[in-house]
C-alpha cells in the first residue's frame, strides 16, 4: 500500500480522469502538453453545466432503461457510493413499474444461486433433492443490480452474457435441467476505485454508460431531489441553448422538412413493405447513420450501433411514434455511442469527404430480401449523419477530448482481457472447484461432499446395510460422494517488464530491448506465466499492459512501444512496484525485470535534473528491496556504472545486455523466478 502512495499515476489513474471528465488535477497538470483545444471545448457555462447535463443524461438513460430493461441490456454506472448514486438509483427504481423484480447480485455469487441448483440445507432436511431457482431466472422482466461489478469473475461475466444474449438461462446442474426465461437488464455499479474497468464482454452488451463520478450534489440541485422519472420524462433540453446541442438546433430545423418528406414517402411505399413487417426506408437509413457515426467515433464492436438503433426505437415508442426521427437518432447517439468513443471524429465532416457513406447507402452485394430500398437523397442522409455525429461528439466529456487530442487516436480494445487473466488464473493455493476424488490425495471439500450426499439420504436410510443408522440424525456419506478441492498446483508467476523507452536508451537499443523481451515472453509462454509491461519515458511511467497471459497482446503492445524523451527511472520503478504489490496481494508472485541503462534524468515530479533523478531512482530501488520484490536488472547501457549501482541497492540480479544472449537472459529470469 505504502509503495503505491508515492507513485506517479499509472495508466488507470489517467484513464479514470479521462472517463471522469472532471478530474482536472489529473495528468493534464502534470506537465504534459496542454490540450490544444482546451480553449474551445468547454461550453460557456463551465463545468457545473457539463455535469448538470451529465446528470440529465443519466436520468434520461435511467428512464429509457426502465422502459425496457432487457432490450437495452443495461447500464454501467461509474460512481463512488454516495448520495448522488443513491439518488440516481432511487430514481431508477421509481421509474420501474410496480412489481418489477429487482435483484441485487453480489460479485462473488456462486453458481447454485446464480443459475439455480441444489438447496443444500433444504435437501438435507428433506432427504431428497430440493432445488432453488437462480437469480437470473428470478429477475426475468426486471433488473439486476451488481455492486462492485469490476470484480466479477470471468465465469460470472460469461454466464451473464449468455443470459443477456438469449434472454434465457440454461441450467444443467445437480441433476436438474431446464431452460427458463431470463429477460433482465443489468445495472453494473463500478465504484471506479480500482484500475480495472468492468469486463468489456459485458459492458459491450449494455446500451448505456453513465459516469456520475464527477457529479456533485450541487449539480443535481434541489429541483431533482425526488426525480420523478417516468417513461414520459421530457427529453432533456441540455445544455439549454448555448451548448453544443444548441448548435444542432438550426441544422435540425433545416433538416426536418426533408426528413419528414422522406418518412412520408416511405410510408407510401411501406404499403408494400409493411405487409411482411419489413424494414421501411428511414429505418434502414437510420442504421447506416448509426453505423457511420460509430465508425467515426472509432467504435469497433457492432453491438454499439445495434444497441443505438434499439434505443432510438425505444425513444420513438415512448413518444408514441412508429417511425424514427432524426431527434431519436441524435439522442441514441448521444447516450449510447458517445460514451464508447475511442477517438475523435474528423472535426469537420464537411471538409473531409466521406465516401464511406455513399457506399453504405447502397444495398450490400448479398442483398437481403428484407430491404427493398429505393434510391434516396444522398445529400440529405449525409446531413443526418453529420447531425448524429455532432450530437455524439457533444456528449463526449471535454477532458476525454483533450486526452485524446493529446495522445492521438487510441487503438482499439484498450483494457480488454483483464478478466481473462483472472479467469484462467485462480491464484496460489486457492480452491478452483471440486471434483470426485480421494481425500488422501487432496483436500476434502466438505460442502461439496455434503452436497453430493444430500439427495440420497432417504434412499440410503432405506437400504438394509444402513438400517443400523437409520434412526440416527447423521448423514450417510459414501466414498462416491467425497469431493476434493482442486487447487492451483504452483504459484503463478507474473513477470513485469519495466522498460526504459527513453531517448537515452537510444533507439537501436530499444529495438534490442524489444528483442530481448520477446525472448523472455516466449519463455513465459512456455511456463504459462503471466506478463505485464510498464514503460517509462518523457515525464512519467505507464502500465502499457496489465498482467495477461495473451502473448499476442503483449507482442502487439511491445511492437507499438514508442521511444524517446527523458528517463523518469524512479517513476518507472514505482509503477512496476505498485503493480507487483497488487499482484502479490492477489496471491501471485511477481518478478520485476527492469530494462534500463540506469541513467535517470527526470525526477518523480516530472522535472529534469540528473542528480535529483538519480537519487530518487536509487531510493525507488531500495524500496524494491524493502518490499522484498525480486528483480532482475538488464543493463541496456554501454557503461555499467548507473545500472550496476541501482541493481546493488535493489538487490536485483544484474545482467548487462551486451552479454545477454538469448540463453543467458532467459536463464537469468528463470533463476530469478525460481
Amino acid at each position, binding site marked *: 500500500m505504502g509503495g503505491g502512495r508515492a507513485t506517479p499515476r499509472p495508466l488507470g489513474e489517467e484513464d479514470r480522469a479521462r472517463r471522469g471528465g472532471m478530474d482536472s488535477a489529473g495528468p493534464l497538470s502534470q506537465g504534459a502538453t496542454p490540450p490544444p483545444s482546451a480553449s474551445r471545448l468547454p461550453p460557456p457555462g463551465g463545468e457545473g453545466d457539463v455535469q448538470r447535463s451529465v446528470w440529465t443524461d443519466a436520468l434520461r438513460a435511467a428512464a429509457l432503461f426502465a422502459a425496457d430493461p432487457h432490450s437495452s441490456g443495461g447500464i454501467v454506472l461509474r460512481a463512488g*457510493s454516495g448520495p448522488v448514486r443513491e439518488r440516481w438509483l432511487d430514481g431508477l427504481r421509481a421509474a420501474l413499474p410496480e412489481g418489477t423484480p429487482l435483484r441485487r447480485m453480489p460479485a462473488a455469487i456462486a453458481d447454485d444461486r446464480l443459475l439455480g441448483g441444489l438447496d443444500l440445507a433444504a435437501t438435507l432436511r428433506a432427504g431428497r433433492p430440493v432445488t432453488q431457482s437462480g437469480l437470473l431466472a428470478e429477475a426475468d422482466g426486471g433488473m439486476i443490480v451488481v455492486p462492485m461489478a469490476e470484480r466479477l469473475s470471468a465465469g460470472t461475466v460469461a*454466464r451473464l452474457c449468455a443470459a443477456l444474449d438469449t434472454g434465457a438461462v440454461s441450467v444443467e*446442474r445437480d*441433476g436438474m435441467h431446464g431452460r427458463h426465461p431470463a429477460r433482465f437488464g443489468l445495472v453494473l455499479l463500478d465504484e471506479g476505485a480500482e484500475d480495472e474497468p468492468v469486463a468489456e464482454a459485458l459492458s459491450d452488451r449494455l446500451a448505456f454508460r453513465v459516469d456520475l463520478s464527477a457529479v456533485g450534489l450541487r449539480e443535481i440541485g434541489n429541483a431533482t431531489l425526488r426525480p420523478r422519472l417516468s417513461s414520459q420524462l421530457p427529453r432533456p433540453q441540455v445544455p439549454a441553448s448555448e451548448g453544443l446541442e444548441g448548435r444542432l438546433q438550426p441544422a435540425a430545423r433545416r433538416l426536418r422538412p426533408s426528413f419528414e418528406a422522406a418518412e412520408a414517402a416511405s410510408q407510401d411505399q411501406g404499403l408494400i413493405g409493411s405487409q411482411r413487417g419489413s424494414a421501411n426506408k428511414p429505418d434502414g437509413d437510420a442504421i447506416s447513420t448509426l453505423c457511420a457515426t460509430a465508425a467515426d467515433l472509432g467504435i469497433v464492436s457492432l453491438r454499439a450501433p445495434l444497441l443505438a*438503433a434499439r434505443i432510438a426505437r425505444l425513444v420513438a415508442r415512448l413518444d408514441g411514434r412508429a417511425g424514427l426521427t432524426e431527434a431519436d437518432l441524435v439522442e441514441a447517439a448521444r447516450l449510447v455511442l458517445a460514451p464508447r468513443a475511442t477517438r475523435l471524429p474528423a472535426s469537420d465532416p464537411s471538409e473531409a469527404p466521406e465516401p464511406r457513406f455513399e457506399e453504405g447507402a447502397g444495398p450490400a452485394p448479398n442483398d437481403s430480401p*428484407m430491404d427493398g430500398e429505393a434510391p434516396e437523397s444522398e445529400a440529405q442522409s449525409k446531413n443526418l449523419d453529420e447531425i448524429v455525429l455532432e450530437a455524439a461528439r457533444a456528449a463526449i466529456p471535454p477532458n476525454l477530448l483533450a486526452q485524446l487530442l493529446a495522445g492521438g487516436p487510441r487503438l482499439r480494445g484498450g483494457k480488454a482481457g483483464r478478466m481473462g487473466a483472472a479467469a484462467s488464473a485462480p491464484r496460489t493455493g486457492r480452491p478452483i472447484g471440486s471434483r470426485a476424488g480421494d481425500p488422501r490425495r487432496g483436500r476434502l471439500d466438505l460442502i461439496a461432499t455434503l452436497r453430493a450426499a444430500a439427495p440420497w439420504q432417504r434412499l440410503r436410510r432405506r437400504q438394509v446395510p444402513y438400517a443400523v443408522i437409520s434412526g440416527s440424525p447423521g448423514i450417510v456419506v459414501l466414498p462416491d460422494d467425497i469431493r476434493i478441492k482442486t487447487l492451483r498446483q504452483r504459484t503463478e508467476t507474473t513477470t513485469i517488464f519495466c522498460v526504459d523507452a527513453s531517448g537515452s536508451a537510444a533507439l537501436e537499443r530499444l529495438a534490442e530491448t524489444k528483442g530481448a523481451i520477446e525472448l523472455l515472453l516466449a519463455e513465459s509462454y512456455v511456463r504459462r506465466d503471466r506478463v505485464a509491461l510498464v514503460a517509462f519515458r518523457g515525464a512519467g511511467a505507464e502500465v502499457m499492459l496489465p498482467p495477461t497471459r*495473451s502473448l499476442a497482446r503483449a507482442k502487439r503492445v511491445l511492437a507499438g512501444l514508442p521511444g524517446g524523451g527523458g528517463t523518469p527511472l524512479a517513476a518507472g520503478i514505482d509503477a512496476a512496484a505498485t503493480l507487483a504489490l497488487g499482484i502479490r496481494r492477489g496471491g501471485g508472485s511477481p518478478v520485476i525485470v527492469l530494462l534500463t541503462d540506469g541513467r535517470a534524468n527526470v525526477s518523480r515530479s516530472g522535472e529534469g535534473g540528473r542528480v535529483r533523478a538519480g537519487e530518487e531512482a536509487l531510493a525507488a530501488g531500495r524500496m524494491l528491496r524493502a518490499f522484498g520484490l525480486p528483480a532482475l536488472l538488464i543493463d541496456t547501457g554501454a557503461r555499467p556504472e548507473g545500472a550496476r549501482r541501482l541493481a546493488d541497492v535493489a538487490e536485483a540480479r544484474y545482467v548487462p545486455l551486451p552479454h545477454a544472449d538469448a540463453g543467458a537472459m532467459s536463464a537469468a529470469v528463470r533463476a530469478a523466478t525460481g
Partner: protein
Amino acid sequence: MFEDPHVIASEAKQSRDVSGSPERSWMASAPLRNDRAKRPQSPLTVPAFPFTAIVGQDEMRQALLIAAVDPSVGGVLVFGDRGTGKSTAIRALAALLPKMRAVPGCPYACDPDSSPQACPHCAVNQRPKKSVETPVPVVDLPLGATEDRVVGALDLERALSLGEKAFEPGLLARANRGFLYIDEVNLLEDHLVDLLLDVAASGINTVEREGLSLRHPAKFVLVGSGNPEEGELRPQLLDRFGLACEVTTPTEIKTRIEVVRRRDAFERDPHGFCEAYAKAEKATQKRITKARERLGEVAVPDAALESAARLCLALGTDGLRGELTLMRTARALAALDGDMTVTDHHIKRVAPSALRHRLRRNPLDESGSTARVERAVEEVFS
C-alpha cells in the same frame, strides 16, 4: 456504505420448497411472470437467426457446413472478436440441418440401421419396426454445467420413488448423432474439457458412477467458440478440433451496416425475418443433403493427396492428422460445391481452417498461423 433497502427487501429468498411435490419441480418453482402486460414472446420460442442471413464470416460458415456434411472432420473451433456472431452462426446451424431417422423412444436417438448392441436402450428393448424423423440435436453446454448432467447420472427420482436403479442420460447422450456446442470454451473447467475430448474422440460415453456402469453411444461434433482475449486455449485442446476458424469484426462500413440492419430487422420481427429467409434456408439444407449423398463418390486423386502432403510438409505440421483432416475437409467442400473430384482449388480453400491450429507454435510470430498457412499455400500451389 451503500444501503439499498428496496432491493434487499424484494430480494428475500423465495420460500423453500421443503414439503412440496416430489417431482423435479424446477419449472414450477421458477417465477412465471408471463402474464405481465406487453411482454414480447417468450425467449424460449424465438426462432434462431437464419444461417443464410449471416453477412460475411465466410470461413466460419464454410467450416460449419463442412462439419454438417461430414461429421468425421472432427469438430469446429471458432475463435475471434466479441460480437461477431459466433454463437449466432452455430445456433443457426440447428435449424438448417436435415432431419434424421431415429429409433423411437431411444434416449440416444440411435440410427435404425446401427447395431442394437452398441446402445444400452436398444440392446434391451425391441426396436419398433417404424423409425421416426427427428431434428438433429444441437446441444448447448451451458457454463456452470455439473459433471453429473454432462455425463448422465443415476435417476434420483426413480431411485427414490420406485427403488429402481436407472440411468438418467445427460447432455452427451442428448448430443449423440448431432452437435455439442460450448460457448466460451476457454472458460470451461479443465476436467470437463478432458472428459468431452475423450468422448468426442471415441464416440462412446463410459459411465462409472453411483453404482452405475454402462457405455452408450455419444458421437457428436464438438463445436467450441471463444475469445482469445479471455484467455488462450490449451495447445492440447487446440489440435483435437478438426477445423479452426478465426472471425474478426468486419471493418468495411458497408458490411457493418448490413450486419446491423439484418440483426435489427430480425429483432423486431423474428418470425417475419425467418420467413423471408425460408427459401434460402431450404436451398442450403438441400445443398447439405445432396452433398452428403455425393460425399462417398467424390474422388480424391493422387495429385490432390500429393498437394495436401506437400502443404503439410511445407508447414511442418505434426503427425498425419493434419493431412487427413485436410483431405476430408476438401472432399466435403467438393461435395458441397457439387464437384465429383477434389482439386487443388478445394484444398486451397480449406487449408487455413484445417491447418492453422496444427502448426508448431511460435508464440511470438504474430503474423499468426493464418498468414503462415496462406504463405505456404502460395508456395506449394504456385
